[in-house]
């Protein structure tokens, strides 16, 4: 069982790294979601896996007896899920707001905070709300070179 989970984590991590390396921030977000779920699986596997032995105290007994699955990793995962849900929801809104204001979800075009050349201004889209990703990036590109 652990081996299976380990390979699942490996595949998820590989997929998330592929997504994280993208220019497209939406893909980066998906990469983060995938990575945080992979982390949850790691907790699950690291805590030791036992099948079909819930940590329930039997009727009339005072404590757990015999072999039972470890409940702590599940508590940790639950906490981690809640936290990463909050953070990722915020990140999603942040990227969307960034898209509205900057007109792009391409991280390579977001050079406002760190301009490539000191005096260069980044052109602004006119109706950012209505642009598609590709249109937005193309428009920025066109405005960047006044000759075209």
């Amino acid at each position, binding site marked *: 069982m652990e081996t299976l989970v380990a390979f699942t984590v490996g595949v998820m991590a590989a997929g998330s790294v592929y997504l*994280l390396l993208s220019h497209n*921030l939406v893909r*980066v977000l998906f990469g*983060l979601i995938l*990575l*945080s779920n*992979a*982390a949850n699986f*790691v*907790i699950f*596997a*690291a*805590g*030791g896996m036992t099948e079909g032995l819930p940590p329930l105290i039997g009727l009339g007994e005072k404590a757990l007896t015999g072999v039972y699955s470890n409940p702590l*990793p599940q508590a*940790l995962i639950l*906490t*981690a899920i809640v*936290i*990463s849900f*909050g*953070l*990722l929801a*915020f*990140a999603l809104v*942040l*990227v969307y*707001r*960034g898209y509205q*204001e*900057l007109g792009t979800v391409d*991280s390579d075009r*977001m*050079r*406002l*905070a*760190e301009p490539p050349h*000191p005096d260069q201004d980044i052109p*602004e889209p006119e109706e950012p709300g209505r642009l598609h990703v590709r249109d937005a990036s193309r428009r920025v590109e066109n405005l960047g070179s006044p000759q075209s």
Partner: protein
Amino acid sequence: MLSWYLVAPIAVPMTTAVLCILLATRRDLQRIVSAAGAGAHLVAALLLMAQVWQGGILAGQMGQWPAPFGITLVADHLSAVMVLITGIMGLGVGLYSLRDVDENRERSGFHPLYHVLLTGVTGSFITGDLFNLYVWFEVMLIASFALLALGSEKVQLDGAIKYAAINLVSTVMFLIAVAVLYGMTGTLNMADLAVRVPQVEQRGMMTTVAVMFMIAFGIKSAVFPLFFWLPASYHTPAVAVSAIFAGLLTKVGVYALVRTFTLIFTDDVGYTHDALLVVAGLTMLTGVLGAAAQNEIRRILSFHIISQIGYMIMGLALYTPLGLIGAVFYLVHHIIVKTNLFLVAGVAKRLTGSMDLKKIGGLYKSSPLLAVLFLIPALSLAGIPPLSGFWAKFVLIRASLEIESWVIAAVAILVGLLTMFSMTKIWVEAFWKPHPDGDDRSLSIGDLTVSERVLLIGPIVVFAALTVAIGLWTQPFLDLATRASAELLNPAGYIDAVLGARP
């Protein structure tokens, strides 16, 4: 009863945040509560410091669950002094923010977020449980995301997106490292880990976990080569926000590194701490060289945060009593000085209209007081005696010479000189050079309103006085750092305080 000293520094900012949310519609009252809450936080921090100074390491088990099963809060001298400095910065920057943060940002929830940030930072310093540390990191992180984006200016969103993306990767790394460590030892209590980690048989795997923690905390503390989120974002938000970030956030990462690499991962020092030493040297150099290329005051200062982080990591990596004394001393000195420089930059912008060095000037002529207030932290940062930075650098370089690490000592001295270069650049461009738009474009401090003078200049004066005080009366601060260092190098006291005396 004693555990109240531990809970109060976390509970006070949390309560203040809740009160600020409840008073969201009543702006004046909210501002008063926010300032009062920051003051109460400082009082709680002072009480904790006094208690630890007199009674030694203080540990409390939350909900009366005995360690290692429940969540433990622990304060040794390092934790206590970090909480105290958080309290001081929290109050100073909190007062500054009353005149710096605009109404729009206040309405969007600046005050609650600010106190949530303080809660997260304080919690990280006090907790004695690794998973709990993760939770406090997240509290701090979500507040810092929101504070960074607050105001939704284009530049801010740009910076915040990069900050968020890289920091989220770091938290996942941290979580995975915690999971693997839990799998190997079966515990998350830091004191218990200190006992059990040496008993684990797979030493290679343990070093791997140590490196995972190093990377996770390394991203948080902006060390080479993981620092790129910092100069991309720290110059974008309101001045008060970037000042508190500059002072506290990366230092939480450094604190976590110091804690884990003195308490838990001390077996393979030859590998982990040597790696940290290389990282420290490269962090110092890249940070200071990055700063030399910049022309915006806050960007210059942001790169200097990175180079200064290198010094603290260097103290940890040397792993000698003197090295750790230097690291603790440097942490305290750096938080005060760096926050102060950002606050001065904010006032400079207010008086001249920009932070771009090419567009401003003439401040020395128009407001000599601000020039002095800039010069004190700037010279301290570069390590000019008798200011606090000199002693911090002196101790660290002395520590490296003692164990004959000539290269790192040379790098530390060189970086000090280059820091001086950057500070001179700000001095010449912003203070000496006439304003490019004519002399009358630079206002003087006298042109500010009375409340602005009190709330903006007041904290700067106090922080500058602290810098001078640490420089002139170094001994008590050095004593404190010595105690902290002794506790870090001999974790038995920490372990006993948490787990109770063991046979």
